[in-house]
């Protein structure tokens, strides 16, 4: 007598669980339609996976199909598999030849090849996800899946690095992304940029505290826009906001036709953030390390985190030409904070300030008027989810 297979499976729920356990999130959602019991198990497994949430950074160099490599590498696959609806946002920094029209026409649309790159990358993600990024002819900075840190400069063509952000973030953490067209950015500069308008611009709920802003703009953004936006951000919560960012040749966003400015906002009770600017005076490896140690101390003060990730924007001259060696700054970062994936680019100007300020200086309230685009610096931000 053959026992009914269905009945046999009902009797051994552990087997169902064991089968479902190896399925991807997408498959789990799909098969939850099989029957009620499966829906229950699928929901449980998804819930379990959501607790372990990670962001990940990947860097690939000089490979013809880098997008495929980024999405297809086993780590990424596994990462995507564990996400609920795959990726919500991918941030991609891409190197490319300096666009020929760069200094003649202020058209903030990525060059044809870069655009293709973004389109290809986006095709790997679900349609509901957003992709944004920047083309930086000066180079990119990133962490490879093997754990090595890279600074890829001028000679590096067709390198890219990407951070993938899952749809669901841990409890008490929040992230939003925004992109602004040049016209909208100019309007903002003219307007009274109050709290409500800023919140709206950053796609952020007005009543929630912002902890960190990452800003990437194209080189065509006029300086009064920078100044306005920066001072508005500086004015938030008495200056208790971390900031890092940089200027790229071009920026891209799948959510906006011709973006001139894209950014990320982090906040929520379980988010920690710190930022640091290394100035023109820090011209040796030793002094860079010393400054990064401050960053490390800030990060260590958070205690145990589920996850941390870093951003780095370095003035295009602050690479191997200054230090006469490769990977000096990223290398120092790795040495001090080996488990924090880093991503970023070489920029044509940096945004950032030190946050939190060292105790000695914190007595003076930061003046929101003197914030502007920096040059010749390296700006860092580290965000943590506790």
């Amino acid at each position, binding site marked *: 007598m053959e026992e009914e*297979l269905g009945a046999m499976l009902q009797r051994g729920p552990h087997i169902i669980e064991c089968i479902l356990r190896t399925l991807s999130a997408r498959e789990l959602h799909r*098969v939850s339609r099989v029957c009620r019991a499966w829906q229950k198990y699928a929901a449980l497994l998804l819930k379990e996976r959501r607790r372990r949430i990670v962001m990940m950074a990947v860097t690939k160099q000089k490979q013809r199909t880098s997008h495929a490599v980024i999405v297809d590498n086993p780590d990424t696959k596994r990462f995507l598999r564990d996400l609920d609806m795959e990726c919500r946002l991918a941030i991609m920094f891409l190197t490319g030849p300096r666009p020929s029209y760069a200094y003649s026409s202020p058209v903030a649309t990525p060059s044809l090849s870069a655009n293709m790159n973004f389109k290809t990358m986006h095709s790997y993600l679900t349609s509901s996800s957003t992709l944004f990024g920047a083309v930086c002819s000066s180079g990119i900075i990133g962490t490879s899946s093997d754990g090595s840190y890279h600074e890829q400069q001028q000679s590096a063509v067709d390198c890219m690095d990407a951070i993938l952000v899952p749809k669901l973030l841990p409890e008490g953490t929040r992230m939003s992304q925004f992109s602004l067209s040049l016209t909208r950015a100019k309007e903002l500069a003219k307007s009274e940029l109050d709290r409500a308008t800023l919140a709206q611009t950053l796609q952020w709920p007005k009543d929630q505290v912002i902890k960190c802003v990452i800003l990437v703009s194209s080189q065509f953004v006029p300086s009064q826009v920078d100044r306005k936006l920066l001072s508005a951000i500086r004015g938030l919560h008495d200056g208790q906001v971390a900031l890092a960012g940089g200027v790229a040749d071009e920026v891209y966003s799948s959510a906006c036709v011709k973006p001139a400015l894209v950014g990320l906002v982090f906040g929520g009770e379980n988010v920690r953030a710190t930022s640091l600017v290394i100035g023109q005076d820090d011209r040796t490896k030793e002094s860079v390390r010393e400054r990064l140690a401050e960053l490390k101390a800030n990060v260590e003060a958070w205690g145990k985190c589920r996850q941390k990730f870093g951003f780095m924007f370095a003035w295009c001259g602050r690479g191997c030409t200054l230090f006469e060696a490769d990977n000096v700054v990223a290398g120092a970062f790795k040495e001090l904070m080996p488990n924090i994936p880093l991503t970023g680019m070489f920029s044509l100007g940096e945004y950032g300030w030190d946050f939190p300020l060292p105790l000695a200086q914190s007595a003076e309230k930061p003046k929101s008027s003197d914030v502007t685009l920096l040059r010749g610096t390296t700006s860092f931000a580290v965000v943590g989810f506790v």
Partner: protein
Amino acid sequence: MIQLCSNDDPPVSFTVPRKAVELSKTIKTMLEDLEGFDMEQTPIPLPNVDAPTLELIVKWVEQHQDDPPPVEKPRVEDDDSDDSDADDDQEPEVVIPEWDKKFLPTDDEQKNQLFKLLNAANYLEIKPLLDIGCKYVADKISGQTVEWVRDYLNMENDYTPEEEAKLKEEIAWAEGL
């Protein structure tokens, strides 16, 4: 050597080296509990396993008796490990070894046998066997339509048409592959 008996009438018995049989956690625990008895002379009845399934089990444990025991996850006591998700108990990806690929009853007419084997592996707590079997089934059903999965596993659809339509809409994004 240990004797195992199937649930058939009359029972079919198999003689298996103790080392192999201990791949089953259930039997291993039982043998430990009965330490001091002469287990060589006492056949162990397995009320949930029939002869063809037991034969497969015996084949598998004999093949794998010299496998290194599964590594217990080392607890890294490293200061910097606070990032690497201490609560990340994710199980490693299951890879089905070549021998096992040939061993698993994978023909469609052997489907019932495959699930009997999984049931037995579950009952006898032979985790590696259960893992590869489940991995095989998971690979088989991924990418297939829900209807196909139901049919393959003889699962009854216990949703009302309305519920199913609603669910279908909610997870439409997951369908396009």
